[in-house]
């Protein structure tokens, strides 16, 4: 009997070890990539034109989807708060209740997940395709540094896009919440807005959410570039890379959300 048990335990340990090594390799790879990205800033060897191109492609084109998500998120916050607000006639607190959670948590988190799905996945697929079709080698042969030309502009654009989209989502979510409050609970939008300017909420809450958005942006930027660059094995490899990016980004976002919430208090 013990002879049977030992191999099974060994298998479990082996599997755990393999999984741990894989996570460590990925984290290590992303750490090295971050270092190489930062090295391109001193002195700056970054393609400005590519930054604008990517900001347009990632930022401007994400506006509609972020707008819809944000409006409905705000509305959902109010719907969820409605029972309590009604029972205690706490109309004055509706703005605070919806605003607190939205600014500090929901807007940065949902925006990050949307951007990871739209921009991060796209970025991984594009880089992965460039790798498997040797376009990255073609850049190197033209004596152009792929990190400075391709990776840094994408990384910077992702972080900037997520930051701006979070700000935008904050505003739209509160707007959506205010108008849902009016429609559902007949709370005047002015009362709603007073609810979070009356001292219960301050700029710190907005800054808290925006700090998170930068952290999430770094996670998505690193993960999507890392998995794109590490692609091997043709079209199926690109599929696997995109998949890995989405999973790693989501996991990273939730873990770091917890960590930053804890640190920022």
């Amino acid at each position, binding site marked *: 009997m013990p002879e049977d048990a030992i191999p099974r335990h060994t298998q479990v340990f082996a599997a755990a070890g393999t999984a741990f090594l894989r996570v460590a390799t990925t984290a290590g790879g992303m750490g090295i990539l971050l270092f190489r990205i930062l090295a391109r800033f001193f002195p700056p060897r970054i393609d400005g034109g590519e930054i604008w191109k990517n900001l347009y492609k990632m930022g401007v084109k994400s506006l509609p989807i972020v707008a819809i998500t944000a409006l409905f998120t705000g509305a959902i916050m109010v719907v969820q708060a409605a029972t309590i607000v009604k029972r205690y006639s706490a109309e004055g607190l509706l703005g605070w209740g919806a605003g607190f959670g939205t600014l500090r948590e929901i807007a940065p988190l949902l925006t990050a997940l949307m951007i990871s799905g739209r921009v991060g996945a796209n970025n991984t697929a594009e880089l992965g395709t460039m790798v498997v079709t040797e376009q990255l080698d073609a850049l190197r042969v*033209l004596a152009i540094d792929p990190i400075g030309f391709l990776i840094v502009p994408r990384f910077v654009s992702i972080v900037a896009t997520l930051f701006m989209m979070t700000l935008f989502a904050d505003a739209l979510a509160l707007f959506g919440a205010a108008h849902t409050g009016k429609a559902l609970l007949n709370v005047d939008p002015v009362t709603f807005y007073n609810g979070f300017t009356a001292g219960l909420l301050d700029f710190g809450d907005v800054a808290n959410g925006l700090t998170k958005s930068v952290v999430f942006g770094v996670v998505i930027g690193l993960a999507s570039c890392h998995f794109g660059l590490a692609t091997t094995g043709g079209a199926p490899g690109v599929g696997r890379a995109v998949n890995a990016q989405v999973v790693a980004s989501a996991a990273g976002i939730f873990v770091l959300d917890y960590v930053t919430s804890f640190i920022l208090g």
Partner: protein
Amino acid sequence: MSVETGIRFQNIVKAFGPKRVLNGVSFDVHKGEVFFIIGASGVGKSVLIKHLVGLLYPDEGEIWLDGEEISKFDEVRMGPVRKKCAMVFQHSTLFDSMTCAENVALPLRKHKGLTLKESVAEAKRRLHVVHMQEFGDRYPPELGDGMRKRVAIARALTLEPEYVLFDEPTTSLDPVSARRVDKLIRELSDTLGVTSIVVSHDLSSIFTIADRIVMLYKGHVRLLGTRDDFKHTPDGVVNQFINGRAQGPMDL
């Protein structure tokens, strides 16, 4: 005329896993000549020329370019080597997200300090050389293989390289375009003194423009010589290959 050695491969060994693709390959390429590399599919022709631009590194052996041993150069030191030694990939590998003109303009913009506008204008002029001027504003995925290859040739020539590595430049081109590319390669050598290394299966290219030819077979150099040496060799393997016969001593 004295010959000057431009490129020297010395005992190059390269394996992928257990598979030894190159097993001690040595030859010299003279400055200014049109040098062909031939051999069966999978013999390692593309692998060999990728060593010259630092896309692959040899397991053993040395590579000399203009009196420098480059086989251990890192990315930074490879930069100048890559500027003087351009490469046309077997599958063209244009950047899909840029138009053909932007593809050709990219090295001009990055290395010659031209603005985007200037570089695109210059790129359109360069596309004339390969008869692709009408396609400057099209994206590579919309074009056929032969057209992409010609744009890739224009892109490789933008930095006025001293050496150009052509990986099957005439494969998938129509006969007229193919002969134009042959003529271009010959002219680069005759008028500008550019050294070309051409990987090719195209017998009519080989026997019209090659100064010297090397044939690789089973990881080794099988024969190195002029067109005449190849035509008159008693070697059955070489004979079978250059005459394209299905039967013979060659195993693939």
